[in-house]
């Protein structure tokens, strides 16, 4: 098994997070590639040092995959949030028709909500991935939850 085989099952998940930050197929794909590229450049030494994947047990392979996943997500969090902020005007014009409440959230809130409720990361793992302080992660989770549920309740009201 080589590095590509190790990380390729993550492709769909990486795309989903990227798309949640920027609801545009091409932009989201570009974020996936850019995040992977930065991860490869920054972590090349450690990746090459641990390349002997043939000797790993299934459990260790899962663990290695999860670690690489979190590593790539850390760069995606940075790149995706920055690009989402830069493209906010353009995104307003081409706003998605579905999941409007979610796409209206600020990028960091979307990121934290997605990591917690879609990928099931714990708050501590989200702190590691996003490099945000713990209180900020908790605050963004709280705000996101409040805004999403409130928006839905408003929609239901006559």
């Amino acid at each position, binding site marked *: 098994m*080589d*590095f*590509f085989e190790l*990380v*390729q099952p993550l*492709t*769909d998940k990486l*795309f*989903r997070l990227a*798309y*949640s930050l920027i*609801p545009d*197929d091409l932009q989201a*794909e570009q974020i*996936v*590639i850019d995040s*992977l*590229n930065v991860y*490869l*450049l920054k972590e*090349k030494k450690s*990746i*090459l040092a641990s390349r002997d994947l043939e000797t790993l047990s299934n459990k260790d392979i899962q663990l290695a995959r999860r670690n690489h996943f979190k590593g790539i997500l850390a760069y995606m969090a940075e790149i995706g949030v920055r690009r989402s902020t830069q493209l906010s005007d353009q995104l307003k014009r081409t706003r*998605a028709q*579905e*999941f409007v*409440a*979610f*796409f209206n959230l600020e990028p960091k809130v979307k990121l934290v*909500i*997605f990591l*917690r*409720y*879609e990928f099931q990361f*714990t*708050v*501590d793992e989200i702190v590691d991935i996003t490099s945000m302080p*713990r209180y900020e*992660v*908790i605050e963004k*989770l*709280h705000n996101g*939850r409040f805004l*999403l*549920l409130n928006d*839905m309740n408003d929609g239901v009201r006559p």
Partner: protein
Amino acid sequence: MMEKTQNTTTYISFQKKIVSYLDGSLSNDDKSEFEAFVRTHPEFEAQIKTKEDEISLLKSLIPVMTLSKESLESLKNEMKLSILNLLKEEPKSFMEKIKFSWEEWINR
């Protein structure tokens, strides 16, 4: 009277911790304390269930987009190319240099 007020305060403080418990943001000590409280207050489980339902509802408000099979394959190919290009080991000898160039040419 004082005991009743204290019990109500404890009850409310644990009520406030339900979401944090479900979010996994409680410290280990707080989590153990919370679970111990729930064990002694079975009626509390109904409130946890309500919050769990709220979280399920929340999950349905999050977009889960998937790529078409073709786009997924194309993205995987781009990732493969990045890995091939960026994880290349530097050749240590002249023979390795030739070997790497040969492999690169074959993989074109």
